[in-house]
């Protein structure tokens, strides 16, 4: 995998000719060797349309292509960085949480609303996060940013996991998500408590949760 964790907030990526990776624009801290950083108007492989879709969904995360030969240090905003290695499965992640990822991974966008029905729409509004979520598929590494540390909570068919939508970072595996208003939680609505809505994840996989209810 091309990412090495230097500390909890910095990763080192090695780029070689013929290999490229994508990173969030402005996240480069330093580099050695001959490396070029090209802004990525197309938003990866998804084409212009996918990018427009993302913009419309408030998922604008300007990416850049990193190519050449050398090593690059990435970090952003002092956020905690978690490297997730994908082995053929799909990672669902909000685009603005992506720090860097392997160029070989297949990028896409998914309309989250379609899964959650009406409540899925609400989710987008409630969390201020887009209805679209970026998907990354294939074999490779993804560096994801979070406010505070990240914990990984496994999801098993026997045990669904409920997550505060604000603290949700990413998930992978064969997982269904559903936004629900918790019964008996209505009391807390109106005080700005995030718990008024919860994201229910069930199936097989894992969800990454950050130590904060703050969006990046």
């Amino acid at each position, binding site marked *: 995998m091309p990412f090495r*964790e*230097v*500390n*909890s*907030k*910095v990763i*080192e990526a090695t780029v070689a000719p013929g290999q490229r990776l994508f990173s969030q624009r402005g996240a480069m801290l330093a580099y*050695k*060797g001959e490396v070029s950083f090209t802004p990525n108007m197309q938003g990866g492989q998804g084409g212009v349309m996918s990018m427009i879709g993302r913009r419309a969904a408030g998922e604008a995360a300007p990416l850049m292509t990193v190519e050449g*030969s*050398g*090593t690059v240090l990435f970090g952003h905003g002092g956020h*905690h960085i978690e490297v997730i290695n994908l082995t053929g499965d799909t990672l669902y992640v909000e685009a603005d949480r992506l720090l860097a990822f392997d160029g070989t991974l297949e990028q896409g966008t998914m309309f989250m609303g379609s899964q959650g029905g009406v409540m899925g729409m609400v989710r987008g509004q409630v969390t201020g996060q887009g209805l679209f979520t970026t998907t990354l598929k294939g074999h490779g590494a993804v560096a994801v940013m979070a*406010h*505070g*540390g990240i*914990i990984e*909570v496994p999801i098993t068919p026997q*045990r*669904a*996991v*409920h*997550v*505060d939508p604000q*603290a949700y970072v990413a998930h992978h595996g064969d997982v269904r998500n559903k936004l629900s208003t*918790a019964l*008996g*939680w209505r*009391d*807390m609505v109106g*005080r*700005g*408590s*995030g*718990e008024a809505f919860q994201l229910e994840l069930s199936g097989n996989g894992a*969800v990454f*949760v*950050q*130590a*904060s*209810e*703050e969006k990046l």
Partner: protein
Amino acid sequence: MWRFVNVRTSGSHCGIRPARTGAGGRTAFRGSTGSRARIPRRCDQGVFRVGIIPEDLSPAASDGYLHTVAMFRLQGSKVLAVDMTGDAVKAKNGSMVAYDGQMDFKKMSGGGEGIRGMVTRRLTGEQMTLMEVKGHGTCWFADRASEINLVTLQGDKLFVESSNLLATDSGLRTGTSFTGMRGASQGNGLFTTTIEGHGQAAIMSDGPAVVLRVSSQYPLTVDPGAYIAHQGNLRQSFQSGVTFRTFMGEGGGEAFQIRFEGDGLVYVQPSERNTIAGEV
């Protein structure tokens, strides 16, 4: 010749590997040599523990006090995991980030019960809003990436800034006490949350808290913005840093300080909230 030697990693760059020599454009990190054993180190995940090891908090460790209550453990340093078997914990409203199993959430009124509680809620603007979480399973709590510190109470009283309280187990009672001027200078309200009983509380700090002992030989002076909690039999007094104000003009840094005397512990955070003095 000028030399730059021995940059110590005493602080925070523990994640860096020791020197490997750079050859042909390869990256070389120069870490340091003089690391010391007594300094707590970060573990791999950037996790910093304030000296608490979850195993140490097992029921057996705390003087025969039988835990039928929820188990508090830290997952990393910023997430509190509570394993519950039908019991209840009180937690800051909105601090639940995830749970599995079956949980019920109920809003509680802050400031304690009865008329006193009502008055308190008025005065504090209900800053301390707690919820009660009850059920079977594991519940994870976190708040704005704050560092979480576990405090075990055995019959004594903990005073904590209301905004710094994350969770308490069912063995503890929460109340409110008047803090006088300190609260005023912090803009934190005039009241501090008190926690009493036998059990565990999780308090939050901006950066890991440092716990300082106060005894008769060692009085302690603290910047109000860095204070988060104290326990034990302590007297607090206000001290104004005269020299600061005289020579520093307005907006002086440590213009006000709190002096603690007596016998107890004071928790300070490596950060300063804005105080009334303005820029700190």
